[in-house]
């Protein structure tokens, strides 16, 4: 069997299967080759725009005009920008609460949806639905559900004797409301967890069964540890996504960030600067500060991952 396949690969014109001489060199060669589409893509479609934005951050670029080189002026101006700090505060608040919650709920949901129960296809589809409903529609629906006077949520709270807050209209509750809404759309993360759960080899469970492990032990000693590569992914992407939160609060408040700028998030403010006030240089400086923040957090996550992420392969 092995021999015939080898013969075929030799006759094949595929350059990737050129007969090997020295494994070391060949190894590296294959790696580069496999990654080559992305190396080109990275250089063309990503590196160039990213580097340009770095340059813009030192200029008064306005999109319509190239502007002048002003060194670190944009950065130093940002330090004195009250709304900049406010938007950082809002964004950090959102990220710190939303990311952990999304992981806990996402994993729990995925485990529920991974049970062998009849009709699971339908349940899964249902959990995925909110990610498919257009954002504008979601925003309007939420405004109704959370309406202080007539909304469903306050109606239910009223029944159990709690007089509900003004939700989106209240400075204290606007961000928790947003977090609540965002949790609704974790369908994509759940799909990833489901795929991760599917990739855990049955052997582990069979072995656990033999050892007489209970549900709790199976979950905490097999499922969760083997799901960590995927949790790790969702954590990193969750942080990046939370810090770049834009569409939902922007549609909800029509860009105003009301009440009292409590829904002005970092990228909302960046967008206003770049596209409404024609201060793309300033916006680019904001982007790079955001980059540094996210970078530090990601590095921390990577550094810690050695302790808690377990790959089946190793």
């Amino acid at each position, binding site marked *: 069997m092995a021999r015939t396949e080898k013969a075929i690969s030799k006759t094949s014109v*595929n350059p990737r299967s050129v007969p090997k001489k020295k494994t070391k060199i060949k190894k590296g060669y294959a790696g580069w080759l496999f990654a080559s589409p992305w190396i080109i893509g990275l250089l063309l479609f990503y590196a160039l725009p990213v580097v340009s934005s770095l340059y813009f951050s030192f200029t008064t670029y306005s999109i319509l005009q190239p502007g002048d080189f002003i060194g670190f002026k944009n950065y130093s101006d940002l330090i004195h920008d009250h709304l900049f700090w406010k938007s950082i505060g809002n964004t950090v608040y959102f990220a710190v609460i939303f990311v952990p919650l999304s992981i806990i709920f996402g994993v729990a949901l995925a485990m529920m949806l991974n049970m062998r129960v009849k009709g699971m296809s339908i349940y899964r589809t249902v959990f995925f639905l909110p990610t498919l409903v257009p954002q504008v529609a979601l925003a309007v629906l939420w405004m109704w559900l959370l309406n202080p006077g007539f909304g469903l949520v306050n109606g239910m709270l009223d029944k159990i004797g709690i007089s509900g807050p003004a939700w989106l*209209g209240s400075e204290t509750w606007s961000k928790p409301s947003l977090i609540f809404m965002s949790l609704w759309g974790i369908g994509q993360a759940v799909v990833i967890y489901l795929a991760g759960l599917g990739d855990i080899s049955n052997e582990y469970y069979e072995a656990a069964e033999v050892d007489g492990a209970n549900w709790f032990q199976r979950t905490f000693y097999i499922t969760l540890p083997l799901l960590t590569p995927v949790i790790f992914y969702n954590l990193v992407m969750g942080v990046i996504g939370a810090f770049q939160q834009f569409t939902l609060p922007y549609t909800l408040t029509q860009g*105003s960030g009301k*009440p009292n700028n409590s829904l002005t998030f970092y990228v909302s403010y960046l967008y*206003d600067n770049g596209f409404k006030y024609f201060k793309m240089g300033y916006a680019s400086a904001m982007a790079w500060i955001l980059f540094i923040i996210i970078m530090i957090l990601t590095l921390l996550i990577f550094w810690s991952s050695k302790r808690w992420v377990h790959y089946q392969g190793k």
Partner: protein
Amino acid sequence: MRQSMKRIQLFLLATLIVLAFALVGCSNGASSSKKGVTTITFWNNATGTGKDALDAVIKQFNKTHSKIQVKSTYVASNESSDDKLLTAVTGGNPPDISLFDRFKVASWANQGSLTDLSEYAKKDGITKDKYYPFAWDESSYNGKLYAIPISTDARLLYYNKDEFKKAGLDPNKPPTTIDELEADADKLTIKKGSRFQQLGFAPWLGQGWLYTWGWAFGGDFYNKDTDKVTLDNPQVVKALQWEQDWAKTHNVEDITGFQDSAGSDAQDPFLTGQISMQVNVTGTVEQIKKFKPDLNYGVAPIPTPTGKDFTTWSGGFSLIIPKGAKHPKQAWEFLKYLGSPEGQKLYCGTSKGDLSVIDSVNQDLFKDDPIMMQFVDLLKTSHNRPSISQGQLLWNELDSAVDKAIHGKGDPKSLLEKANKKVNDALAKDKAN
């Protein structure tokens, strides 16, 4: 096995390439140009009756101009974003004409992205006195003309006559002073617990921007001579102070609750009778005709502290020629046409709900409509938002100042002083560049 795999791969790749080329081929259809005929592209986001109106004008124009043909393309954009136009101008590939919110003319002109139309206008004898002064001012920046205004609106106080009767008020005597407004509002308000069954009035609802009240109080937002905004103008401060007091005495949280549950269009609170008085724009007239034709309502000038010197402010649309347009000369012909009495009559007569920027056209179109005539009467003295490079920042700052003031986050004077400084700093920066 392996061979067939390869074949599938090759097949996939080939299909893709063919598809990709087919796609490119489809969309790259070369623009057909007959001899001597120039096709000019016109981007707009008009839909519905607005589109009907533009189409009518384009049809008429194309008929009367054999050498120029206008081709209209729908391009999504809204008040806050014209990403497409922005990128197209940056890429040096803009349309010849674009429909454009006049509010943004100054900031785009300041960026050098609009074609200066002053010379064309001079040559063809198009001058300020042909239009309402505010429309011309908003189309100009630093003394140069950058746009041709094509439509406008105004703000008035709408009030529900039936509810006036029910509250024991004279339905033919809407409030004229701020004090009367407040007294009438209280009589019209029916509240149960924290819920309004009927809200008499709230200053910041509808079109009650700070612009509306600042001018009504006799203030001003901009000094042309110094080219600086004057948000700390004592009358503007007074207007905001009044709003803040209103919020305090009428419990702003309850009003916000009311506002959040208000519907739009057919369920607009004014149409459903949930609010008795509201400052609104001209378009509301059409909205009422469409969704609630039997509503017994009237319009009146926005009350002022003295009950005199009524005023309003107007926005609207214009046509611009972006910098880098291929056929500015031909485009200008279309601008001129839509801005002429003939084009205006066709456009505003078809679009419904838009006022013309030419007084004689309005007098002609609306002479039999007493409600529309109330708007037309105020247009000659109507204000426009300052034509400055930082119009958007100014708008956002004013909006945010009102939001803070009514929620008790600071006193009006210091809020406005802060906003004033921010906008003036930004203006100074623009000038330095």
